[in-house]
């Protein structure tokens, strides 16, 4: 196995969404260190993103009465805003020259998994997405402090239903269990205490604005994780995020999504020590530089969105410019992963969960659809005998099995078939 090719392939697919045409071949010439440096150093401006404008999202206010013309117009607006939001983010992933920031935003979206299925309004989901982007590579303590008062997250976890009289523990529990500490690293009394500290916040559902109303906030003194005092959301976030359990938990989550979902993080990996600083940029660099990156045992299944965006980038496709962009959402839905619609607050499935016969069938359909609308010239323009190596570099594939190499070489007279087969191959579906 060519380990240098493996490491460069992992850098592109795990810390971005796969190479654009020409990038992989260039990276091979530059070598691992230069490629890593380039892929992990965000530029001041990204020309790939220059053409993308944010979606036009207005505050649509309350749901009008059912069955009225106002309601019909409202429903149409809601649907259009949702589609615009989804396509905007897919476009960013597909077009960014430097995809690390989008890739990290995608990771954090799965971490603070909030679904538009319950939130319904696009504006608060967009605001949350921008927050995640802003702090994707920043200070985790600041990220957590901002997210605990994020309107979409508050609504998703019933923050608005949390009152002094009847504290709602949903956000309190998930904040510790899923976002910062991990399960069983706190007591039920801590959940109750955090729920009390999180009272007093009200969400405007349609725009996600969160306001603090002191008179419905529980300002009594209680104990959270061994610290006694009065607490508001920000203080709670800071207290929890400062714990050593948080260092371990976030290090594990990053390991799980970037290195291996099946093999646990070894203590020797520097990720945990570096994350003690809560500096996410340094943490990501540490993990991307660690020995694990060239260790063949750490393969990782691409999620459907990662696979889909990888193909868009290789084929120079702008998702929103496809003839029927709503078709994309339908395809992603069949594959089981639509941005902004995680299945639950625990985030996306992983690993073998994405490898069913049904998903294999849908991947073929989607790949055919994308090939019909994408730029296949990098394969078509070279002579058949060079197409196998051209498709390897176009898709950034680490190493081929003899099986797949033969299958592809035997049909190299047909560039579309070459691409379809390579895109559906085990070597592309899995990041080696």
């Amino acid at each position, binding site marked *: 196995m060519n380990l240098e090719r493996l490491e460069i392939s992992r850098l592109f697919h795990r810390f971005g969404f796969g190479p654009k045409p020409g990038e992989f071949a260039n990276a091979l010439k530059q070598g691992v260190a230069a490629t890593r440096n380039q892929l992990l150093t965000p530029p001041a401006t990204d020309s790939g993103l220059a053409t993308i404008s944010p979606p036009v999202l207005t505050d649509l206010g309350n749901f009008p009465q059912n069955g009225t013309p106002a309601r019909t117009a409202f429903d149409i607006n809601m649907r259009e805003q949702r589609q615009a939001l989804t396509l905007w983010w897919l476009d960013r992933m597909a077009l960014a020259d430097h995809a690390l920031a989008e890739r990290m935003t995608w990771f954090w979206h799965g971490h603070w998994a909030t679904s538009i299925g319950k939130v319904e309004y696009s504006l608060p989901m967009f605001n949350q997405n921008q927050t995640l982007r802003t702090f994707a590579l920043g200070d985790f303590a600041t990220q957590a402090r901002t997210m605990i008062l994020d309107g979409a997250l508050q609504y998703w976890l019933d923050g608005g239903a949390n009152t002094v009289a009847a504290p709602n523990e949903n956000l309190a529990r998930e904040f510790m269990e899923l976002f910062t500490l991990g399960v069983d690293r706190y007591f039920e009394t801590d959940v109750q205490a955090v729920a009390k500290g999180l009272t007093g916040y009200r969400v405007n559902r349609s725009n996600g604005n969160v306001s603090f109303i002191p008179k419905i906030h529980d300002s009594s003194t209680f104990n959270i994780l061994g610290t006694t005092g009065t607490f508001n959301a920000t203080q709670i976030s800071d207290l929890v995020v400062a714990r050593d359990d948080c260092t371990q938990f976030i290090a594990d989550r990053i390991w799980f999504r970037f290195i291996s979902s099946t093999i646990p993080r070894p203590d020797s990996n520097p990720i945990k020590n570096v994350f003690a600083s809560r500096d996410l940029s340094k943490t990501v660099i540490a993990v991307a530089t660690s020995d694990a990156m060239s260790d*063949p045992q750490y*393969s990782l299944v691409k999620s459907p969105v990662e696979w889909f965006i990888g193909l868009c980038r290789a084929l120079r496709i702008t998702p929103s410019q496809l003839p029927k962009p709503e078709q994309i959402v339908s395809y992603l839905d069949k594959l089981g992963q639509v941005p902004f619609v995680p299945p639950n607050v625990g985030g996306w499935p992983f690993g073998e969960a994405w490898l*069913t016969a049904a998903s294999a069938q849908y991947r*073929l359909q989607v790949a055919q659809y994308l090939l019909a609308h994408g730029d296949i010239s990098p394969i078509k323009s070279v002579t058949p005998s060079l197409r196998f190596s051209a498709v390897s570099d176009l898709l950034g594939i680490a190493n081929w099995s003899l099986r797949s190499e033969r299958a592809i070489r035997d049909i190299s007279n047909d560039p579309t*078939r070459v691409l*379809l087969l390579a895109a559906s191959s085990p070597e592309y*579906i899995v990041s080696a």
Partner: protein
Amino acid sequence: MDTLSRRRFLQLSGAAAVAAAAPMLTMEQIAQAAQMRPLPLGTPILIVVTLYGGNDGLNTVVPFTDPIYSQARPDVSYAPSDLLPLDNQLALNGSMTGIKSLWDQKKVAIVRGVGYPDPDLSHFTSMAIWQSASPVHQVNSGWLGRWLDTQPRDPMLAISLGSVLPPLLAGNAVAGSALPLGGIVVPTGTLALDCQRISAVSRQDSKLMATAATSLRNLFDLSSTITPILKQPAPQPLDLPTTNGGSAGGNSDLQQQLDVVAKLVAAGSPTKIWSVSLGGFDTHANEKGAQSILLGNVSVSIARFMSQMRATNREKDVVIMVYSEFGRRVKANASQGTDHGTSGPVFVIGDRIKGGFYGDQPSLANLIAGDLAVTTDFRDIYASLIEGILKSPADTVLSNWKSRTDFLLKA
């Protein structure tokens, strides 16, 4: 939220995650299993019917002689003449003639006031509670999934109709299987040949790549022996009109699902649990018409299914349970609908059932914050079904839940 589709619930509840991991079965695979190792005759079969959205129990099993009923919901209540009386206090919704006929044959247990402590009025939470059977602590496994965990591994043992597996069939170690109604489309021609070549077994594959290859190969790796049974139509109902009834309003999806179940049960599929569902019960507005169409679908589909079973030798083996995540408010809202409520009736239907009422009818006079009291915990029903139908200890599945509902005939 005004409409709650099953799919949407499943997406929100984490079932998509489970479903992705669930084996997808093809009709051919089930047919082959039915032929090679048919379920022994006399083995009980549980069919779980989930009504998504929160079915209004008070307009399903109607306390029609209680004056508070019509006072609380003048525009969303039924006159006695529109109902199918079961005794002098309760009557079935007028659309449920099929289930009324089964009731008259003493094959229907109606468990009243079913719910769980501290009812949650969120669709997602409440359905997750019913499907996980864990009201206090959120767990990711379903009650029947945990039963699957105790059984020898067999993808045929529990099957859900539709491409997304409901959480109730997700165990900690194994999950039930999903049977997409439309089936899986297998590529043909050169694409098929190409796919078979690129998914052939390779020793160079990592474990995950080998799984990816298998998933693609499985698309083609179907048994070529389609049994004659599955080419035949579903078993013919014995005592229903042969004109494939239900053209009024079109075939309900539930009927299609139960037709497939009937076919596969008749063929001898080694399956002890089937899961089917119907959505649309979230009737916040203009409830009466919508709900009676849905209840009519449920009733016709179940009566048809039971009749199909009579045409086979599995009639005495099937038991159907029908439930929803909650009932609805006693008092109607301002848009001729009802908002989310608490307890509701559960139906358990079959030859093995002692027909009649179980559990106390919640009082309309003594409401708890405007909602019906819970008089029976749903775990009583689950435990009885696990022991009486699945013939297994309920302790491990239901955390030592002790109470039972005695609706099963002694064997």
